[in-house]
């Protein structure tokens, strides 16, 4: 639980920390999109270097990022291996029925691996340098146009910020309940998968019961304090778009042009 790096905020004052969360969110989504259009070693190299530069400029140690990749390493390796053995082309080093080990296969396997790692790194940058509450505001801002399609954007963003707000509480409670059940002789992480899943009941059920109760209380409080859905409201935290953010957009445009040019003429 404590090893999970994605979703954690590391306070700091780096350039990346100071950027507008709306820009950061767009940047990350766009960057991940671009990763799928990379063709050739040069572009791969450029994007990997760029990712590293961005990561280092946050002032968070590289070790922290690498730890963020660790929980997903099996998934990544699975995709990579699948890619390697199913791609044919170039020089073939080994072949056995369905399984091939080829020059192209190895190369595209490496690309797949890199793409995954970069995706995780760049989204970790976003969550490490942006307060969850700012991120919610950014999501709200980006979803705003959907209001014209009668999507309850206000409610969605309230739900999201409440959910984020209670994650630390939920973690605390998990620890407490876990300790209480351990004290009653429960051993977590023993036995086969089915047994382990069954063993979660004494942990998950109390958490559910308590969360439901708190949700009810929370709804009552919102009502008592006069919260009305659909009402027009202003914002306490205002996001400010700065020159840096515009420059960042410029970087995105340049990247797009480079990727497209190389894809078309390369």
């Amino acid at each position, binding site marked *: 639980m404590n090893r999970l790096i994605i979703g954690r905020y590391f306070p700091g004052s780096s350039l990346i920390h100071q950027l507008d969360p709306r820009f950061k969110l767009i940047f990350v989504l766009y960057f991940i999109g671009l990763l799928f259009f990379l063709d050739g070693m040069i572009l791969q190299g450029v994007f990997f270097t760029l990712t590293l530069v961005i990561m280092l400029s946050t002032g968070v140690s590289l070790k922290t990022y690498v730890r963020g990749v660790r929980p997903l390493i099996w998934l990544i390796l699975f995709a990579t291996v699948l890619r390697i053995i199913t791609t044919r082309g170039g020089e073939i080093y080994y072949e056995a029925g369905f399984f091939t080990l080829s020059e192209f296969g190895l190369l595209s396997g490496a690309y797949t691996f890199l793409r995954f790692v970069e995706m995780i790194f760049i989204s970790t940058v976003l969550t490490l340098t942006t307060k969850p509450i700012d991120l919610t505001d950014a999501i709200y801002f980006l979803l705003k146009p959907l209001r014209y399609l009668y999507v309850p954007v206000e409610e969605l963003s309230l739900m999201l910020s409440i959910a984020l707000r209670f994650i630390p509480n939920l973690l605390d409670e998990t620890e407490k309940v876990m300790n209480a059940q351990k*004290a009653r002789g429960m051993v977590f992480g023993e036995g086969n998968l089915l047994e382990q899943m069954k063993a979660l009941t004494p942990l998950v059920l109390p958490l559910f*019961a308590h969360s439901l109760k708190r949700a009810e209380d929370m709804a009552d409080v919102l009502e008592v304090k006069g919260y009305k859905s659909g009402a027009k409201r202003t914002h306490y935290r205002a996001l400010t778009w700065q020159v840096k953010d515009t420059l960042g957009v410029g970087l995105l445009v340049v990247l797009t042009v480079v990727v497209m040019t190389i894809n078309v003429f390369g």
Partner: protein
Amino acid sequence: MHITFNRVSANYQLGPIKRADILTDLSAEVTPGSFTAVVGPTGAGKSSLLKLINGLLLPSVGEVSVGEVVFTAKASKQALKQVRKRVGMAFQFPEHQLFAETVYEDLAFGPRNFNISDSEIDTTIKHVCQLTGIDQSLLERSPFSLSGGQQRRVAIAGILATKPDILVLDEPAAGLDPVAKKQILEMLSHLHKTEKLTTLMVTHDMDDVVHYADDVIVMAEGQIKAHLDVRSLFSDQALLERYQLDVPTALSLQQQLEQAKGEQLNHRSLTLTELADYLIEEGWV
């Protein structure tokens, strides 16, 4: 069973973030069959001290021994299981641990974890229900349908169902109404006497200390500042003031009377009966 802390320090190390020690250089001894109250301001490390006793928190330095089992920075699963069977631990708001479909199932959860046979569990549950005052008709109900006070009883019964020799309680009566609070504490005190349970209880209520405890551990800033019997604690005004400890209602009343009268009684009273006796004895009333 004997509990000893031998120069114990401990912290909650979370991954890479090294925290300062929560407990530093503790040494103490709890004699078998005693009722010890643990008092001190919030954040003093009281709950952490309790967690050391059943290995939910392991010492980073020093050792904790419970009976013949000794914990150091590393503890085997075997030792942990052995100790947890013998130490019953009630956290703050223990009703948050209830999860089973029926009260019976919840009570059987602990003993089942310790591989006790079903027939034996059945007799134990009947026994703990009697001890804790849970009516047999409640056994088939869902624990979530009970009142707060009843849930607390069920939770404590679930802890007793493993037949511990040591009972560790973290504010067992917090958040209950005065009647339920008194019932729970009386029940625990009764258990302590009849079942000869060595009991440690964290509390903020000095009247509880006077009524139930034999001796007191005073904690502050992660250290044990004093370990003494109840009467010595409340005779030591300097100690009480240094750690901002309250005094029992009777003593507080006595101090107000003394201040108003400008004289002092010869004894310090801990209960209202004592206060009444001293007042009559020394001719104040």
